[in-house]
């Protein structure tokens, strides 16, 4: 839809309209240059006013000039070309320049083809209709330029080519150098070109003219393509080929239709669409329209660009929005599946929780309580074994009399021992403290040697011989000896086997 346009083929006598878009074309008809034709043309234009239009002019009142100009760019080039066109074509309104190639030698100048419609009054009514109906005119180009694209489509790549194209009872002779238009002329229908020999003569005259103008080298062999849907140029091939300066070749309609990818019957019915179809999708390289006629097309292109930008923005934006929306749907679907799984888990949990005993403590506390009770019930002190260990030491020291025995269970504490404290007295104490202390030490060694007992220490002794304390006492005689007592206290630890 972006490349949909009208291609107009205008001659002083009529105008043809082709509705073209890539892959499709429709011939809307031909309209004579009179009041009825203009009205009918206007009707067609009104119906397609939204489409850009390109006008191909086919007239004898045209002029071509090949010029070498200094290589400049931008604004300087525009000014240079404007001056040159003014100089060459004087007051012609429809002029244009096409920079074809750059010379490879010398100053490396640019070679331009300058062209003009020297008399374009016949074009004014058609352009008025287009202007009145606000049709965006993209350009005006001579038919010879359309034929250049035709040659390109035909893949004809000879260095010196002359296309003899018979259309609307006129013969157009166009010269192309390396595929680029250098010169063209139209021989009108008032000339008796219906005769094949006259066509060959016109071609020969044109060859002489081109050679005379140094457009065509004198020794060059000119390849002539004869294109005539009516077949009247066929007989010109033989006389041309008889001349070694020419090499003529006929282009039949099926080959042309195949090259342009249009149906044979459509081309046979409307042979004038051939150059229009060839140039329709191409960039306009030689535009003869003055800038004021192109204003609407400039607006059209800006408008179309903005609309395309708006469409692109909307498309991309909607794409992004759709992607987010789809992502949201996907995430919601995942969440829904997870919610189902959660529901399933909660159902299973409820089934398990219903089986819990109602009055029991929390399961963790329940286990801890059992564990604690087991701990408290473990490592109980065996008093019999404890007393047996102490008794074993007492048996080894019969001169020790036990007065008090006390034990404290610390087996649940980190030390894990049982503390024992005992108070005892020495029997048969004669007042000799040295001997008494020796007997006590012997008792302590006996305790230390007893099973499970350790850390035996003397807490209080019969006499305190420490140099930091006061020591008082008396000696005993034989009568008082029996009343004397030597008391002492010991502390020790008991640890059961395996604890």
């Amino acid at each position, binding site marked *: 839809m972006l490349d949909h346009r009208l291609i107009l083929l205008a001659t002083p006598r009529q105008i043809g309209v082709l509705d073209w878009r890539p892959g499709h074309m429709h011939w809307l008809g031909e309209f004579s240059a009179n009041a009825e034709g203009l009205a009918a043309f206007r009707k067609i234009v009104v119906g397609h006013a939204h489409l850009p239009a390109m006008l191909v002019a086919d007239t004898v009142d045209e002029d071509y000039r090949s010029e070498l100009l200094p290589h400049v760019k931008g604004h300087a080039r525009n000014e240079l070309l404007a001056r040159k066109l003014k100089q060459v074509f004087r007051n012609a309104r429809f002029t244009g320049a096409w920079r074809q190639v750059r010379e490879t030698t010398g100053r490396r100048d640019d070679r331009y083809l300058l062209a003009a419609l020297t008399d374009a009054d016949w074009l004014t009514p058609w352009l008025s209709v287009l202007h009145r109906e606000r049709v965006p005119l993209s350009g005006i180009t001579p038919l010879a330029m359309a034929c250049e694209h035709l040659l390109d489509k035909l893949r004809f790549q000879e260095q010196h080519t002359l296309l003899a194209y018979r259309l609307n009872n006129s013969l157009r002779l166009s010269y192309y150098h390396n595929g680029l238009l250098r010169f063209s002329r139209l021989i009108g229908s008032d000339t008796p070109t219906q005769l094949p020999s006259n066509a060959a003569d016109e071609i020969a005259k044109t060859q002489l003219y081109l050679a005379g103008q140094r457009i065509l080298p004198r020794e060059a062999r000119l390849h002539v393509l004869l294109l005539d849907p009516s077949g009247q140029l066929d007989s010109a091939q033989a006389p041309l080929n008889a001349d070694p300066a020419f090499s003529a070749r006929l282009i039949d309609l099926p080959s042309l239709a195949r090259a342009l990818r249009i149906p044979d019957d459509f081309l046979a019915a409307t042979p004038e669409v051939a150059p229009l179809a060839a140039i329709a999708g191409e960039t306009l390289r030689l535009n003869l329209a003055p800038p004021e006629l192109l204003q609407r097309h400039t607006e059209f292109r*800006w408008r179309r660009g903005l609309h395309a930008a708006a469409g692109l923005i909307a498309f991309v934006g909607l794409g992004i929005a759709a992607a987010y929306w789809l992502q*949201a749907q996907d*995430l919601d679907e995942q969440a829904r599946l997870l919610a189902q799984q959660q529901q399933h*888990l909660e159902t299973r949990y409820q089934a398990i929780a219903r089986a819990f005993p109602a009055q029991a403590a*929390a399961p963790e506390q329940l286990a801890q309580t059992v564990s604690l009770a087991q701990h408290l019930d473990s490592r109980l002190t065996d008093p019999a074994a404890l007393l047996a260990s102490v008794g074993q030491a007492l048996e080894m020291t019969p001169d020790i009399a036990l*007065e*008090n025995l006390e034990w404290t*269970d610390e087996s649940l504490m980190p030390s894990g021992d049982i503390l024992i404290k005992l108070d005892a007295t020495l029997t048969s104490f004669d007042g000799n403290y040295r001997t008494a202390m020796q007997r006590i030490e012997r008792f302590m060694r006996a305790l230390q040697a007893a099973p499970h007992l350790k850390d035996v220490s003397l807490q209080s002794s019969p006499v305190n011989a420490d140099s930091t304390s006061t020591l008082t006492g008396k000696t005993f005689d034989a009568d008082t000896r029996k009343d004397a007592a030597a008391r002492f206290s010991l502390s020790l630890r008991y640890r059961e086997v395996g604890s």
Partner: protein
Amino acid sequence: MSRPPFSVLKLSLLLVLTALLLVAASVLWSWGLAQDAALRLQQQRNALNSAQQQLDRSRQQQQLIATHLDAYQTLAARGFVGDEDRLAWIEAAQLANRDAGLYGLSYRLTPRTKSPPALTQGLPLGQTTMVLTLPLLVETDLMRFLSALRSRASGVYRVQGCRMSSLGSAPFEAVNQPRLQAECDLLWFTVAGKVGGAS
């Protein structure tokens, strides 16, 4: 393309602006939808994890209950769980004294106190000290009494310590009179009643 003819492109520019606004609005709206959906999904994942953890925990609790419920109920029946049963403890001491054939005893129960934290394992464990004073003929009487108490007492207790002392310094005579006195400290343990049910 030459300089844009803004005067004739107002509608087109407005169209571009409208497209931009509409696109921005729709993208923001759909982005918000996606963000909300992502948040809902994250919340649902968290809820699912919680449900999974709850189920795993309930299975563990189920296992704990299956393993320990009988033992716990036995402990509750023994009086370890719940209020103190001081009468049962006194009765156990009296019966043990009788079983051991001793000469009577005196007892004293102190108020219940909290057990040391190192012992409680985080449970509301309390302990009550029972001080028993009993005369003995020989040292082995104490062993027989403690053994009898162990068989009579249903609660959980430990003998914290004992002190044995002779009642006088008279020489040994073969008469059936107590010559020793024992004073023992017993700790009776109890755990406060139900703290919380299964969850």
